[in-house]
């Protein structure tokens, strides 16, 4: 049953991607997926996020569509936080992406 559901979900995603590609819509808008931009190792911008799961001195975990992003480092600061984007500054040492897409 689960296998059938997964297969169906995969087909649905493939169809969505094809439509987004055909209509030339930005993928992060059309597919509800995050857009992550990193400048060097000191600034990271996550657009289209779903909120913060975990935040401490050395780690920030952010919920995204179908998974989460984990940023590790030191002196991490959430420079700006809004529903559209999240700007993280500090010494970024690692980036871990866990997504079901």
């Amino acid at each position: 049953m689960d296998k059938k559901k997964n297969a169906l979900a995969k087909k649905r995603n493939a169809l969505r991607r094809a439509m987004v590609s055909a209509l030339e819509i930005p993928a992060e808008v059309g597919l509800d997926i995050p857009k992550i931009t990193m400048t060097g190792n000191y600034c990271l911008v996550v657009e289209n996020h779903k909120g913060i799961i975990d935040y401490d001195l050395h780690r920030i975990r952010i919920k995204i569509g179908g998974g989460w992003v984990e940023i590790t480092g030191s002196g991490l600061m959430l420079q700006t936080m809004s529903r559209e984007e999240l700007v993280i500054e500090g010494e970024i040492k690692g980036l871990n992406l866990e997504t079901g897409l």
Partner: protein
Amino acid sequence: MKYSRQKKFYQWFNGSVTIYIQGNGVEKFLNLVMQEQMEISEICWRNEVLVSAKVPWYSLGKLRHIARRSKCRFRISGKSGLPLFLLRMKRRQALVAGTFVFAVLVYLASFVPLRVEVESPEPLTTVRFEDVIALAEESGIKPYRSTWFMDFHSAEEHILRGQSALSWVGIRSERGKVIISVVERKLANQEESDLLFGNILAGKDGLVDYILVRRGTAAVEKGSTVISGQPLVWGNNGQQRLAADAIIQARVWYQGFGECSRVETGYRLTGEETSSFALRNGQGKSLLLWGKKESPYEICHREDTVVPLVIWQQWQLPVSGVITDFAQEEAVVTERSSDDALAEAVARGKMEARKKVPAQGEILNEYVRIISRGPDLYQAQVTLEVQEDIGVFVPLPPEDQIQLEPIPMEEETAGKKE
């Protein structure tokens, strides 16, 4: 960076509050703030238990509900921004009034000069600075008196009347002082030629028409042809050295060449023009504020005007404004008849020759010689015959600037005979 500056200005304009958040549900607190579409920024851990963040001051009321829901506590640690500053100033009206009065007093004080100075582009020989200052004081220009009560124009006239050796006086107020600029009159009898021994030489080639020797001995006579550098009047009278002085009028010829084609292509302005304004820093980098960077016209005349951006008196911004004017031009083809082309070539030749004629020169005759008569190109040479003073006083070298011993009578007579 630009975005960040805009954001910071927006924060300052709206007023912001720094809060310390404490509790287990910091993430929930932040997510709820985000869901409420409230602005929150600069979130960071202060220590193991305390998170600091910046929020707009008007959203503090909503934050209390969010804190209760997320089981967190927060306290205000600092306030900044314009509205909060104005609120503080409202409570301290005496401070605001004092600052305003102080600013007004400083402004008024800038009109009171602390001293009066005299300056001159060259050292003064017959006029003393003290005399100029005394005359200025008589007409009300003195220290510790507001410039509002000073009449610079009448003071300038008063100083000029009092000191006839001055040719010009200008008074201006600048940085807490009044500066009187003076220029001393240069008297005619102080000319260089009167102070040094020397000869008069021909400045140009010509034919001497008239010669009047005031001092010295003539080396040429009326009708002589002279070349540039030839002595005209010697600086001695047979007995002693002196500064030669004479009027030597001679005929000098100037030539000009002109040419004109029957079909000529030129450019003229159409009247269409546009401008742009940009800021430019010391390194030459420009930031276009309005208008177009490049000319919208195919053929155009471009002119850049640099405007220093001054805020107040000598306070100047580190960038300057550049106004660029683009004026559209169009190609114009002029076709002339053979007579018109010839006349134009002659006119151009005349113009070129006239440019060489000195201001005091008198044109006696003009001669036109046609060099080429087409069919397409016409060329003409114009010669102007001009009468002018060609004498140039040349002082003797410094080692010869000493008076000679008087010459014995016999030798003098012999010299005259020669």
